[in-house]
């Protein structure tokens, strides 16, 4: 790409050089001059000039105020803002007076008060008084447009930011403006809840207090909380967040724009999910199992004594089940304790990510710039890594071609054959185009183990390593699966035999505690030590329970889907000491040297696997580490066995783990409506064959179990496949029979 042509624009007698086509608002900012805006937001696509706040005077254009946000820098342009142009000043003043005609001015009650652009701009550019003496327009208020967001239509200034987000960012088209003129209001269809992975962003976009989250309603004022910069730990994207806490408790989470990771968007799980910290069944003290009475609270001294005893008694026959939600430091500490101190080297890692992908590292923003994107896999991208879905939509709007290969996609393949399809891409027409492209992206979204290695092999073959615009992303299931795997490997070079029989199973984290495979392993173990946040995950199987902490309550690092190491901060006061504190204490009883300070643990770990970077190097907006060239062709894992084709009349069950599921989401009342409806997705062909229409109840049977679900028809789904969310699929076998 050649450097864009520079043009000289004069703004308020200041001359500034910007690339041709830069918006006038940005041009003015480059000259150090503010043009106030409400509706203008470059991330929402083309400017609409709805609010008229940005009015400026432009020489050579018709002698009337021009909407600055809709203009672009041209050579020799002379722009006067309200600072130097009386016309612009009067126009902006009148615009604000006009906006305020129907604005209720209930700032002391409004939660936006204190961080409200309308307040700020009225203070700086607006009239000090009003000439309007008539009654203001009133609406019923506040109305929930979903359990998580409420709308106050009196405060709305009709800037259309929210509807533009709904139309051209999340592309769900659920939030629209209905009626016309002064009667216009923002609404959903028939007052249905605004549902989707990204709805919470409209509360952040709203320049007034019209769309507000229901969760911290009236609990905070903007000058009362501290914003702690951290990283979301609920999915592998690792969106940058600002956590607003007051008096040690988290009140809300806002996105913190990292232009390469999240572009300032945040999904609802990350935004509204924090209240699980204050769930009823949160464990705050260590618990010991007492034969007849269940779990009993014990002191930390007793708990550490107990833990030491359990570890010694197991005599090295120990396995660790990790969640992938531990910080890299916690995982390293646990690994060092168990591997160095006890000589146990068996771990159940959350998932196999596969090496080699670091050679094709790219920022997620590379998806936006790509021209050809291939998405392989069985899970919808939005369920695994929601922000990646937004990047894909942005790419599609920019004209990129996106080819989805999966049971529901452009190229339909049978479940379990993703690895085969991946290999096929090395040849063929699509493969040639990928090889020829300078800006191509591969994404693997679920479906079988070893996806990372298949993807690395394909990317190597396609020559992606030498093309900086190309990248390959394996979307893990867990937030820090990569970091945990690296930490476990870094703790020791020794290897040990599989423990037989298993003396002690250490279950670390909620995801592991809820995992049926871990539960099955626990059946064989003599003892179980669980580290978990919630009572219901601990009861009935653990001999000793140590309270876990959340990603919002501990210092540490997560490694995200790109391989970017990002720093988590303690944003709330945890009800119990964090993991690292007591693991370090326990380690000292086994003569293992371990610091309780995350920065020192990270420094030790970093020496081994991250090239010696420190917390200071990571900073608040972490850089993507450079690509690591491949030394040898990546070893490809063996294919998973392909499930047998479903016999005639039955359907192959395709499960997926929905975004809105898991221990955290279950404990957030505001997110319950987002959980998937009890539906079974059927292909058009199967629906026709079974005579089922959309919304009709069907019964899904397999091998003795039966579930009642509603039918949904997915036009992109392969015939012979039925897709059900994990929450509803429960014990169903891989082959199901569907009938009305």
């Amino acid at each position, binding site marked *: 790409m050649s450097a864009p042509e520079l043009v000289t624009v004069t703004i308020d007698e200041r001359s500034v050089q910007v690339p041709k086509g830069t918006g006038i608002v940005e041009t003015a900012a480059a000259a150090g001059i503010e043009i106030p805006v409400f509706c203008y937001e470059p991330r929402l696509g083309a400017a609409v000039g709805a609010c008229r706040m940005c009015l400026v005077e432009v020489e050579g254009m018709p002698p009337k105020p021009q909407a600055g946000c809709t203009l672009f820098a041209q050579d020799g342009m002379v722009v006067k803002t309200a600072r130097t142009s009386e016309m612009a000043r009067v126009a902006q003043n009148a615009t604000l007076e006009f906006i305020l005609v129907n604005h209720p001015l209930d700032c*002391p009650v409004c939660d936006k*008060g204190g961080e409200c652009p309308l307040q700020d701009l009225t203070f700086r550019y607006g009239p000090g008084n009003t000439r309007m003496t008539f009654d203001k327009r009133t609406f019923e208020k506040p109305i929930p447009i979903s359990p998580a967001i409420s709308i106050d239509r009196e405060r709305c200034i009709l800037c259309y930011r929210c509807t533009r987000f709904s139309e051209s960012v999340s592309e769900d088209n659920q939030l629209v403006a209905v009626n016309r003129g002064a009667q216009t209001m923002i609404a959903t269809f028939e007052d249905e809840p605004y549902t989707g992975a990204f709805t919470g962003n409209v509360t952040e976009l709203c320049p007034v207090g019209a769309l507000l989250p229901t969760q911290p309603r009236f*609990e905070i004022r903007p000058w009362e909380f501290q914003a702690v910069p951290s990283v979301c730990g609920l999915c592998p994207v690792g969106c940058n967040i600002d956590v607003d806490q007051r008096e040690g408790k988290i009140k809300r989470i806002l996105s913190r724009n990292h232009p390469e990771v999240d572009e300032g968007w945040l999904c609802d799980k990350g935004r509204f999910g924090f209240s699980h910290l204050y769930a009823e069944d949160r464990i705050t003290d260590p618990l010991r199992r007492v034969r007849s009475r269940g779990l009993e609270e014990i002191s930390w001294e007793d708990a550490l004594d107990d833990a030491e005893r359990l570890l010694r008694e197991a005599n090295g026959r120990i396995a660790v089940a990790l969640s992938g939600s531990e910080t890299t430091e916690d995982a390293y500490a646990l690994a060092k304790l168990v591997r160095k101190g006890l000589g146990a080297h068996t771990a159940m890692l959350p998932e196999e990510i596969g090496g080699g992908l670091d050679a094709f590292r790219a920022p997620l923003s590379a998806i936006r710039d790509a021209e050809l994107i291939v998405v392989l896999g069985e899970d919808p991208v939005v369920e695994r890594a929601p922000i990646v879905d937004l990047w894909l939509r942005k790419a599609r709007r920019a004209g990129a071609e996106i080819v989805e290969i999966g049971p529901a996609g452009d190229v339909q393949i049978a479940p379990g054959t993703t690895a085969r399809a991946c290999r096929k891409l090395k040849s063929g027409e699509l493969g040639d185009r990928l090889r020829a492209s300078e800006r191509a992206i591969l994404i693997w979204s679920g479906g079988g183990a070893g996806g990372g290695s298949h993807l690395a092999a394909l990317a190597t073959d396609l020559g992606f390593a030498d093309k900086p615009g190309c990248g390959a992303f394996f979307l893990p299931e867990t937030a820090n699966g990569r970091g945990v795997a690296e930490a476990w490997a870094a703790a020791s070079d020794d290897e040990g035999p599989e423990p037989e029989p298993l003396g002690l199973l250490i279950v670390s984290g909620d995801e592991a505690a809820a995992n049926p495979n871990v539960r099955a392993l626990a059946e064989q173990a003599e003892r179980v030590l669980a580290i978990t946040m919630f009572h219901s995950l601990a009861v009935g199987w653990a001999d000793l329970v140590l309270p876990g902490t959340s990603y919002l309550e501990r210092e540490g690092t997560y490694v995200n889907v790109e391989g970017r190491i990002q720093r988590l901060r303690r944003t709330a006061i945890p009800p119990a000491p964090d993991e690292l504190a007591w693991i370090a204490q326990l380690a000292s009883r086994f003569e293992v040297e371990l610091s309780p300070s995350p920065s020192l643990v990270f420094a030790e770990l970093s020496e081994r696997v991250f090239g010696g970077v420190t917390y200071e190097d990571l900073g608040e907006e972490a850089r993507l580490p450079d690509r690591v060239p491949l030394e040898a062709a990546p070893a490809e894992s063996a294919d998973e066995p392909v499930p047998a084709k479903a016999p005639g009349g039955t359907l192959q069950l395709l499960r997926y783990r929905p975004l809105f599921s898991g221990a955290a989401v279950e404990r957030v009342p505001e997110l319950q409506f987002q959980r998937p409806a009890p539906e079974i997705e059927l292909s058009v062909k199967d629906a026709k064959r079974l005579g089922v229409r959309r919304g009709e109840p069907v019964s899904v049977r397999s091998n003795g179990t039966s579930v009642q679900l509603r039918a949904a028809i997915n036009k992109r789904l392969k015939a012979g496949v039925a897709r059900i969310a994990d929450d509803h699929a429960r014990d169903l076998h891989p082959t199901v029979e569907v009938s009305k």
Partner: protein
Amino acid sequence: MLRIFRGAGLSHRFARETGGLVVSPQPVDTLKGFGVTFKQIFKKPLTMQYPEHKRPVYPRFRGRHRLWRHENGLEKCVGCSLCAAACPADCIRVVAAENTAENRVSPGERYARIYEINMSRCIFCGYCELACPFDAITLGNEYELAEYDRDDQIYTKDMLLAEPIKKVPVADAELYDTPIPYYRAHS
């Protein structure tokens, strides 16, 4: 003999040197001073016997805060926290909540669920009163705010909404049933 003394502890030496008799080095000035004191004995005392008698304060004296209600009994405060924002001593803590049909505390949507003023920190500058958009808080004239316990210095919303408690007796039999001694009542 007149000697000039400098520094502390010299009076002892002087006493020693004069055989134990302490004589002022400036006898005339001393007597003048006593004269002033003696003159006061025959004047009517200016001192008021606090706490029985209290000097009236100016109406704009800023003392203990008071929260107010509307005539219909609803609290004027909506819990906007502007007082807390304005407070230079950071002594006000407001936690707001939402009014419901069953539990309506203030007009409008929002009310102060918790409203606390830490009187030991307050500097009585009156900024809270200035900041309040609803005239919900004012500073009164009460200044008797001493407590035996620091915790008691934190005034809760209920305390601030109520009339201030008169803490010390005054010489007013109609207000107080504590017996007032004869000599005080008639002084």
